[in-house]
């Protein structure tokens, strides 16, 4: 890292060491941020990115770690995130910090409402909020409650809220997890504008394509250490991945050769009415089939109805629906998830924290939950056989945890996702639905999950995978269907599919 011709860093971390009970999260990390640059921070889950950010923003206060944080070259001690905010550091977290039942305008000015003597001036609030959104190019009505917006728009409101406060340093933690391509482009424009004004940005992301699109410099963390920092121009994707993982990942999507068998699941003429807007359909006449040993990818933009399709088949439909579902040729009536489970289906939902796991329970308790009956006699749980089966499944899935009794909240995203998978695999299911299985997961764990999917198909499972990542859909699926506005607009074999063809059907 040459220092001679560069301007002085505005924010830096020097030799940071941070320990948690039982684990050293950061082991001498050095990181510096120059004004007017977009600096990407990449690394596997557990590499220490979130910890470093929490230290830089004061969430972990001075005194709870060794090493120095410097602001404009001089050491600084943040005792809370308020201190760092006062210095001019803003953070956009992965978890949205919006109040769901307040309006967009109220959220944008949360904690900073305009007005005198404690009385809020709503006219100013809404007009200023509108100005902010217009400047950023976001089209949202400032008076709608946040809860009515989709996740993508919510993320944009969060970004608007943070960007409104003039800040010198902006840290974005996985900001595009829920955004579609168009919105990602919007975010990148916003970031470039900020950079032109002299703001320094730290951009944390697993999506290397985006990183290479926007970043000036890239720092790679691995196992709590800084592995490398360099100009993005001096690097390519393979080199970054190698630095992150420490080994060559040549095959991101290992292609397993398998021949599909009988038709395991057949869906005919599935239609779902929108419960909020009568007369509008969320799904219209959707039909498809999946065979044993086959992976069917469902592609499409956000809002196309993919998650609704999978939820409906699994018995968790948001509204009234009609259509036919056949498992191995036999028609089944599915009214609730328990019916679907009895028919041999399994679902790894989109939101693993709120739908897939019970965060305060242990890994063991989460994994045994669905098929607890297998370990029971007359309603009494046999703890030993439960532990035995779950630990076997955990080993097969490669779940990294010191013990099965650890609270699942402490696991990294990739391991949490494996626990959700493990819930279903302690008992042989026939049809597995995966909704965004590798969202927010690092490259190494992603490859592992794809490998697991390949193994499951080899054993004869039928897999339906919903994914927003085109490379994943194209690399992993045997067949692909594309949804647009609730209708099936395209069907491809892997060999005849291409990103352009899929995008065309999706838009």
């Amino acid at each position, binding site marked *: 890292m040459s220092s001679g011709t560069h301007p002085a860093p505005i924010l830096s971390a020097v030799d940071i060491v941070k320990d948690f009970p039982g684990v050293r999260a950061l082991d001498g990390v050095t990181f510096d941020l120059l004004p007017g640059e977009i600096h990407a921070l990449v690394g596997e889950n557990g590499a220490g990115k979130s910890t470093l950010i929490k230290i830089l923003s004061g969430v972990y206060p001075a005194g709870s770690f060794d090493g120095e944080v410097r602001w404009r070259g001089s050491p600084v001690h943040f005792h809370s995130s308020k201190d760092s905010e006062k210095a001019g550091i803003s953070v956009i977290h992965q978890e949205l910090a919006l109040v769901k039942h307040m309006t967009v305008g109220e959220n944008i000015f949360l904690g900073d409402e305009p007005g005198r003597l404690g009385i809020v001036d709503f006219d100013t609030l809404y007009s200023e909020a509108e100005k902010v959104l217009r400047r950023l190019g976001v089209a949202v009505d400032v008076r709608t409650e946040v809860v009515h917006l989709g996740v993508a728009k919510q993320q944009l409101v969060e970004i608007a809220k943070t960007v409104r406060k003039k800040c010198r340093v902006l840290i974005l933690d996985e900001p595009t997890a829920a955004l579609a391509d168009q919105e990602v482009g919007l975010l990148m424009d916003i970031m470039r504008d900020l950079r032109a004004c002299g703001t320094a940005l730290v951009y944390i992301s697993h999506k290397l394509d985006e990183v290479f699109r926007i970043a000036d410099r890239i720092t790679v963390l691995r196992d709590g250490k800084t592995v490398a920092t360099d100009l993005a121009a001096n690097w390519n994707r393979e080199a970054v991945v190698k630095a992150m993982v420490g080994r060559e990942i040549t095959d991101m999507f290992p292609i397993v050769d398998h021949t599909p068998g009988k038709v395991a699941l057949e869906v005919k003429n599935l239609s779902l009415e929108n419960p909020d807007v009568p007369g509008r359909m969320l799904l219209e006449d959707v039909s498809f089939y999946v065979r044993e040993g086959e992976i069917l990818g469902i592609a499409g933009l956000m809002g196309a109805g993919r998650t609704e399709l999978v939820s409906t088949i699994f018995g968790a439909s948001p509204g009234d629906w009609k259509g036919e579902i056949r498992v191995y040729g036999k028609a089944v009536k599915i009214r609730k*998830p328990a019916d679907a489970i009895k028919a041999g289906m399994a679902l790894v939902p989109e939101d693993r924290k709120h739908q897939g796991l019970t965060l305060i329970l242990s890994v063991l308790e989460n994994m045994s*939950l669905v098929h607890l009956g297998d370990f029971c006699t007359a309603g009494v749980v046999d703890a030993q056989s439960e532990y035995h089966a779950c630990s076997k499944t955990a080993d097969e899935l490669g779940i990294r945890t010191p013990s099965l009794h650890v609270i699942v909240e402490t696991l990294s995203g990739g391991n949490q996702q494996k626990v959700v998978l493990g819930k279903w695999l302690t008992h042989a299911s026939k049809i597995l639905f995966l909704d965004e299985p590798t969202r927010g997961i690092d490259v190494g764990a992603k490859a592992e999950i794809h490998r697991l999917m390949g193994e499951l198909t080899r054993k004869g499972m039928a897999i339906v995978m919903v994914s927003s990542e085109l490379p994943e859909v194209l690399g992993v699926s045997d067949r692909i269907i594309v949804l647009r506005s609730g209708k099936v607009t395209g069907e491809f074999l892997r060999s005849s599919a291409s990103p352009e063809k899929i995008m065309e059907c999706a838009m």
Partner: protein
Amino acid sequence: MIFILIAMWLFFRWRVGAFYFSGESIAKLSRDMATWTILAAGMTLVIVSGNIDLSVGSLLALVVGACAYMIAPEEGLGWSACLAVALALCIGIAIGLWQGFLVSYFRIPAFIVTLAGMFIFRGLTQKLSARDPRLPDNCFVNVLGFNYLPPRVGTILALSLCIILALLILNGRRRRKRLGLDPGSPLQTALKIILPSLIILAFVYKVNQYRGVPAQTLVMLIVMIVLYFIARHTRFGRHVYAIGGNAEAARLSGINVEKTTILVFGIMGFLSGIAGIVWMAQNQGATQKAGEWYELYAIAACVIGGTSMMGGRGSVFGSLLGGLVMATVIQGMDYTGLPNWMQLVIRGGVLAVAVGIDVATKNPAPWMQRLRRSLLRRY
């Protein structure tokens, strides 16, 4: 929390004198806490499932009133005690199931359903118990109120309990070894057997010096053991914890949330009935004020014992510990003869302080952490 309890015991020993650790005093402590600790056992499951039940005190009173009314020859119907007790328990179960039904199928918040129940049942109690129905002296139910387990029986029971505990733990150890799992160090196993056994034997020894194990305490302990078993070792219990931890994930895992919730409230109703029978025995009849405030004692016992109001976390024996803390405070206040108003103030204060200390040691607020760090650095 256990240290706070011991500290309290030592404090009262100092204030009250040697009598405090006598068999009679210990027996009285265990008797007085029996009714609402039985409620606390059921309340643990309710709170863990993510709900709350504010009606248990009034439901207890209703059961007491109905049962006494059925039995009392002069003020009531004069029916057979067996029939009355059975019917009263059925009333408890039915009302519990009904409240659970309202919560799960009508989606009325549990707080509101049981708050309404609290008023409704209290009103019905006032009518049923208006004439203070008395139980006749020869009623078999009185056994629960005034009898004690003969010391020899008590000792045999305690010893068998300890032996069963030892066998269960050793058996578990053997099975773990057979499955290739780590059975834990011999020291751990020994402690797991010895500590609870010592407590059981010490308790029984002390109360035997007085008159033996009180019947109410026996009922309370049986209820505790059964509820512990249900919560920790049955599929139903697991489902309760799962629902409280994340109802949506539970539903997507195939758990029938509605059925489980109804059952939880049904169990609570049943336990309200049992606690009611014990109360009725202790008081030889019914009064309009039966069980007043008991729901709050039950909830306090659960919270002191570590049950989280957010659901998904809590233990039955923790609630027993919480009940001990509450009972210690109440009884200790009684012995020191403070005026009634002061006792109430202190009771509330101790609840807040006890839980506050507990939280501060396990999950301190950021300013506390900073304070601790700066103090540690100074010294």
